[in-house]
């Protein structure tokens, strides 16, 4: 399979990570350009996924559950005009990420909320993925 992998990219990537640390960068992702950064917490039968989505409204976010993977897709439209630009650090466009859930989740019990640019999704383990006690007659 064709690959343009070069070990020097990894070495330079490390330099970027170190530079980013000392510049106090917030949420860069050098490798995957247009995917939101997420955190995943697992607590018993519950899974919480948090994603950084600044400048995105509820209507612009599309959440999909396919089998046991969760797909987050959103479009961030430019909130500025193409006037004379002095500083340009933010990114716009379509962002998407597919997250594999640690277990099968109940599609009826998913709740999501968006507050101050942070998307929180709560998911629950589906009934047929929970352990069942088998009675012996």
């Amino acid at each position, binding site marked *: 399979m064709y690959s343009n992998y070069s070990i020097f990219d990894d070495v330079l990537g490390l330099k970027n990570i170190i530079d980013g640390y000392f510049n106090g*960068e917030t*949420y860069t992702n050098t490798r995957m350009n247009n995917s939101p950064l997420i955190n995943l917490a697992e607590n018993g039968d519950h899974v919480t996924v948090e994603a950084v*989505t600044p400048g995105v409204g509820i209507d612009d976010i599309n959440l999909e559950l396919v089998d046991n993977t969760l797909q987050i897709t959103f479009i961030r439209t430019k909130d500025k005009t193409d006037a004379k630009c002095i*500083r340009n650090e933010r990114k716009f466009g379509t962002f998407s990420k597919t997250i594999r859930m640690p277990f099968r989740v109940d599609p009826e019990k998913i709740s999501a909320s968006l507050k101050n*640019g942070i998307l929180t999704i709560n998911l629950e383990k589906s009934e047929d993925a929970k352990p069942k006690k088998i009675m012996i007659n």
Partner: protein
Amino acid sequence: MNNTNNSVVKNESEKEFIPYVDISETVDSYILNADMPGVSKENLDITLDNNTLTISGKVDYKTGDSYEYQEFELRNYKRSFVVNEEMNTKDIDAKIENGVLTLHIPKSEKTKPRKIEIRAAS
């Protein structure tokens, strides 16, 4: 508008993040957009000291104790800019929506383009 964050490296816990900022200029104003996810209107602080404009925001989002998988963390934000006489700092308009701060800084009267009237020769 220069970035004036020359602070020495602080402790890991008290280190603030520098928010990503876009600044653009129109005919009669400067517009500053800053990404500050996790900051609400109540926890946002914009101060103007002499000619330094500082935006700082406290994150009030409660994160979980431990993550199975973690790509980001939320910390307070702080960034300072130098403003000059071209800007009318009295009428700065600020709003925050979905974690994006928008500052509207009008230009002062003397730097705004103005039309020069031509008097008819009498």
